């Protein structure tokens, strides 16, 4: 029972919600870039949100199921086809052994997630299956998935026979997804060194556009925009950073740290992207424009709680159908 990688993709790794609790040893959490997508694809096949998923980038290569499985895809739209029939995101599919899946269109979004019912049969490293490429730990042999790899998954649980019809007649609605992801701006809270910025620089942060540069990956997004001036230029001793931390580089440009960020850094942490907006940011591509808006930490918390409640409602609705 496994997923056979027929053709290597650009960057395909196993991730879950991240390896928490080891930052003080320099071990960063890693984990999925888009938590909304990983949570929903897991729910669509009846898994817990914490189950490991495959994160694909474009081009994704080609995969084959070596056993019947209940699977779901979500996140970026790669125009998937299963044995040349369209395979939609955001709905569960019962696919039979031998089904081959590949991308056929220019992607909308950046990262695509796949969950399989029961989850993958992989050994956790320090409580997580997230792949840490630098340290070669977690996931499948601590590396990206390559041609000829066979990723084992666990035995399927039983579910109602209605899901055996292909394709299923329901999916997560566009409106729901837009509500979860949708926001014209990327919301931020001020960081510990926000006041290192001049008044003018602060104004620039929440009024001007920034562009995601081509130097952007799972570690961080470098932005291009108006250079930001500092009130004072004291060198900082290193301190903690986290996913969403926006650092000010000596050049006056910004970098947003993403899932593969280092645990500590010495650049001013001028702001942090709120948790509720990290998934949307994870799906933005090179050359996309970003506008920031400032919110309070209390609002950031409420927004994440609201997102969590929405997940719970969806999970309940999905379970009713299974």
């Amino acid at each position, binding site marked *: 029972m496994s997923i056979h990688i027929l053709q290597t993709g650009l960057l395909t790794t196993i991730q879950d919600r991240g390896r928490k609790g080891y930052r003080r*040893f*320099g071990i960063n959490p890693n984990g999925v870039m888009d938590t909304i997508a990983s949570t929903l694809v897991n729910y669509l096949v009846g898994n817990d949100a914490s189950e490991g998923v495959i994160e694909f980038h474009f081009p994704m290569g080609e995969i084959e199921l070596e056993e019947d499985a209940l699977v779901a895809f979500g996140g970026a739209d790669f125009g998937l086809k299963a044995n040349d029939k369209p395979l939609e995101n955001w709905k569960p599919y019962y696919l039979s052994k031998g089904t081959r899946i590949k991308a056929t269109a220019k992607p909308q979004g950046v990262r695509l997630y796949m969950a399989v019912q029961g989850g993958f049969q992989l050994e956790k490293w320090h409580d997580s299956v997230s792949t840490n490429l630098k*340290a*070669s730990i977690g996931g499948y042999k601590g590396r990206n998935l390559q041609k000829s790899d066979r990723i084992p998954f666990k035995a399927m649980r039983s579910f109602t026979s209605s899901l055996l019809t292909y394709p299923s007649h329901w999916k997560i609605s566009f409106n729901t997804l837009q509500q979860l992801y949708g926001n014209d701006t990327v919301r931020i*809270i001020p960081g*510990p060194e926000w006041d290192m910025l001049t008044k003018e620089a602060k104004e620039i942060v929440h009024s001007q556009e920034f562009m995601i540069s081509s130097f952007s990956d799972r570690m961080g997004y470098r932005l291009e925009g108006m250079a930001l001036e500092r009130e004072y230029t004291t060198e900082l*001793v290193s301190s903690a950073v*986290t996913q969403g931390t926006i650092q000010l580089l000596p050049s006056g440009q910004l970098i947003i740290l993403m899932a593969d960020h280092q645990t*500590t850094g010495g650049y001013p942490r001028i702001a942090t992207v709120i948790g509720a907006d990290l998934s949307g940011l994870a799906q933005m591509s090179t050359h996309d424009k970003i506008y920031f808006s400032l919110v309070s930490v209390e609002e950031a918390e409420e927004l994440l709680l609201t997102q969590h409640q929405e997940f719970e409602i969806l999970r309940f609705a999905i379970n009713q159908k299974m």
Partner: protein
Amino acid sequence: MIPTNFQISPLSESAIVLGFGNAIDQTLNTQVLALAEAIQANPFPGFTEVLPAYSSLTVFYDIFAVRKAFPHAPASHTVRKILLDYMTTDPSAFHSGKDMLVKIPVCYSEVFGWDWKEVYEHTGIAREEVIAIHTANVYRVYMMGFLPGFPYLGGMDSRIATPRKSQPRLKVEAGSVGIAGEQTGVYPLDSPGGWQIIGKTPVKLFDSTTNKPVLLKAGDQVQFYEIDEDTFYTWNSAKEV
């Protein structure tokens, strides 16, 4: 006692930074580590982890778990209040005193020390003398970060300080020992890097296959000692340190 002069600010909606000034100071760092231990020894509902750094402590928490235990206030308010409570207790009571002196063998041979020429050009000190200086001091692990198992060491003799390379290498091998400005350190993993490499240790600072994947922790003491190439190549990890 914890200094009364501190900053408390959110790092995200799930993390708060306690900042005690912008300094590399042993007393301050000891207090940061004691406070980290105090919180870990008596964690609050929703606590997930601490990250002690040179002069700051960051506390991570799960807002859902904090709200479950304290439903009537934002988690950021609750955790802030809890952290202030920790700071009024005497954290020195929690300092375990388990900080270790870890002796790390280094082969300073030119086979591994790629940058001896640059170190000599900058310091004017001969290789043997630099090795004597590098192995004489006991270094303090102020914090861990950057890479899994990477120690930020303090206490290097400024006579052997050498600036970073102008062009970082694409790959420095795990175990390489280097100098960067007034810092010294060991690469725990193969990594790009700009440090001036003066030697290599056969000891693994990060080893994912063992129960204790990370050799060092913040607060430990480190001393380097010289080994020759034969010893390096025949090093048996079972008898290490």
